[in-house]
């Protein structure tokens, strides 16, 4: 059975050999598999020595949650249970993590918003849990289709936010996520985002290391706040950030606490740089004057547009942002040097990524920034839509 007490110095409770994150991500031999994003998330969690997972069904993440539950039945996950709703789930995740458990959960769309109060509470209590957010549309009107508007609600929660483009990135990113979130000087929650359906339900080739190796367990005694622990002095029955004690709190200490949480996100940069091999990935021509700034599957579509535009003799490059929090401002600024037109294709109506890009480049870059194309509510973003946007800009009125 899965119990911490079954661990040894070399193996976890399920008998997997404990290895470093570097070995698991960069050195271990890999074999090709053909899997959906949900299946690949199960494979990632199988290699993460996960103590606890809490679930609640909502499309499209239900399958991933279900598969992590199978991991519990197979003895790889210590504790698994279903919450009463998403608010309950995120509260229970907080409880598990405060008690020192490496904890993961998944959600989507309206479930994210139903649980909303918990996310800044997570970061405020400095738990290093992971939420895999399989983005989908938000009511109303009701939709279960792909859309990433919900990410805009998460931007200022004090959590780290990483964005995976495909199943391979989901696998690698969700392993690296625990490692970075648990660094003592970081120790804030991490939200690993993928576009629902496009990644969660799409089968792709993915390179996986063997499943008899796994991450070292989480050590809650390296946390910046003590875990709930009635055994080790000073006994803690409640994890108690002093901001919870209103009798001693003032605006100043609360402000300082909030800056500290955001400072923790900033401290994650060098770790993310290492494990993600850069906060941004660039595809395309070095001397391009047109750039697409993207995240998630919009990157994939932008790369397709880049290939088609190359055939027309138009040089472009795709700057894929892998971390949204921390925002890779310095890297983006360097990447857009010499660029005249920046396009920000997005799967949402509000253009939250465009706003982020504009804010960071304001007064620092002379490129013309175009917020688009944008699709939402489940519409796909064909490369033709991106190409049309570009042609309208550089060849007005004449179309693609």
């Amino acid at each position: 059975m899965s119990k911490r007490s079954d661990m040894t110095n070399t193996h976890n409770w399920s008998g997997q050999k404990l290895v470093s994150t570097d070995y698991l991500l960069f050195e271990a031999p890999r074999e090709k598999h053909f899997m959906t994003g949900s299946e690949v998330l199960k494979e990632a969690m199988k290699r993460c020595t996960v103590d606890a997972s809490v679930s609640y069904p909502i499309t499209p993440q239900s399958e991933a949650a279900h598969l992590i539950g199978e991991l519990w039945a197979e003895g790889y996950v210590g504790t698994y249970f279903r919450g009463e709703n998403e608010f309950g789930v995120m509260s229970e995740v907080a409880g598990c993590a405060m008690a020192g458990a490496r904890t993961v959960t998944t959600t989507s769309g309206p479930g994210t918003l139903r649980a909303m109060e918990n996310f800044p509470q997570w970061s405020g209590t400095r738990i290093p849990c992971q939420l895999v957010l399989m983005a989908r549309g938000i009511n109303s009107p009701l939709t279960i289709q792909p859309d990433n508007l919900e990410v805009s609600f998460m931007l200022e929660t004090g959590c780290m936010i990483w964005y995976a483009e495909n199943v391979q990135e989901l696998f690698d990113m969700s392993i690296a996520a625990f490692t970075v979130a648990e660094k003592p000087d970081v120790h804030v929650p991490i939200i690993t985002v993928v576009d629902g359906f496009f990644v969660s339900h799409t089968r792709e080739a993915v390179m996986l290391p063997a499943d008899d190796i796994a991450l070292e367990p989480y050590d809650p005694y390296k946390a910046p706040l003590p875990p709930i622990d009635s055994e080790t002095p000073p006994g803690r029955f409640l994890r108690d950030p002093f901001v919870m004690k209103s009798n001693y709190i003032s605006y100043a200490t609360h402000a300082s606490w909030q800056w500290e949480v955001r400072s923790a996100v900033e401290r994650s940069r060098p770790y993310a740089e290492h494990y993600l091999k850069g906060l941004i990935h660039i595809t395309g021509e070095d001397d391009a004057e047109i750039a697409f700034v993207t995240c998630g599957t919009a990157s994939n579509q932008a790369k397709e547009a880049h290939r088609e535009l190359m055939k027309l003799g138009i040089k472009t490059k795709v700057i894929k942002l892998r971390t949204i929090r921390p925002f890779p401002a310095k890297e983006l600024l360097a990447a857009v040097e010499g660029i005249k037109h920046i396009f920000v294709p997005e799967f949402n109506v509000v253009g939250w990524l465009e706003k982020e890009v504009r804010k960071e480049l304001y007064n620092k870059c002379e490129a013309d920034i175009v917020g688009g194309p944008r699709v939402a509510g489940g519409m796909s973003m064909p490369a033709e839509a991106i190409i049309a946007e570009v042609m309208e800009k550089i060849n007005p009125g004449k179309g693609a």
Partner: protein
Amino acid sequence: MANQGPAYYSPYPAATYEGVITPPEGKALLLEDVVDEETAMREIAKQMLTKENATIFPGPQVLYAWSDEAKRKATLIKEMAEVLNANMIPMYDYRPKYPKIDAEVEINPNHPNLTIWENKIKAAIFIGVHCHYANVALKIVRAETDCYTIAMCALSGHEDAMATIRDQHASDLEKFIKIAKEVKSELGV
């Protein structure tokens, strides 16, 4: 006081918003400069030996004999205080209280910001404290006092301290004590 930049009107600065983050492994931080650990240890010893009311604040992780490492560290910290001619104020609860505690009235208001204010401490070592509480306290102390704060951290260090050394285990404290004795001899104090 940070009244401009990313922190806007927050009364307390945050070093990360000035581009300073914790030092890489094997290195230390003196203000915003990444330096060798030994260089930092020498500067820390110098500060502690030359500033008024130099004080060591041992936190819960070295106040309780909850591990062999904690016991060993506690013994070494006592020796460290003797070498540095420093006071020692145990910091069981180092969460910064502000502003309702009346430090003149409350018995042992052992909170770093209040203690530093009240005792006019000009150099202080934080050791054995939980990182996040320490970071918040360090921000407040940095903004409100002229105390030279030093974080001797068993984990990744604290950029809001004036000097921080990281990954400090018992063997590192032994090294620091040796260096502090040399500096003390050089200074003739």
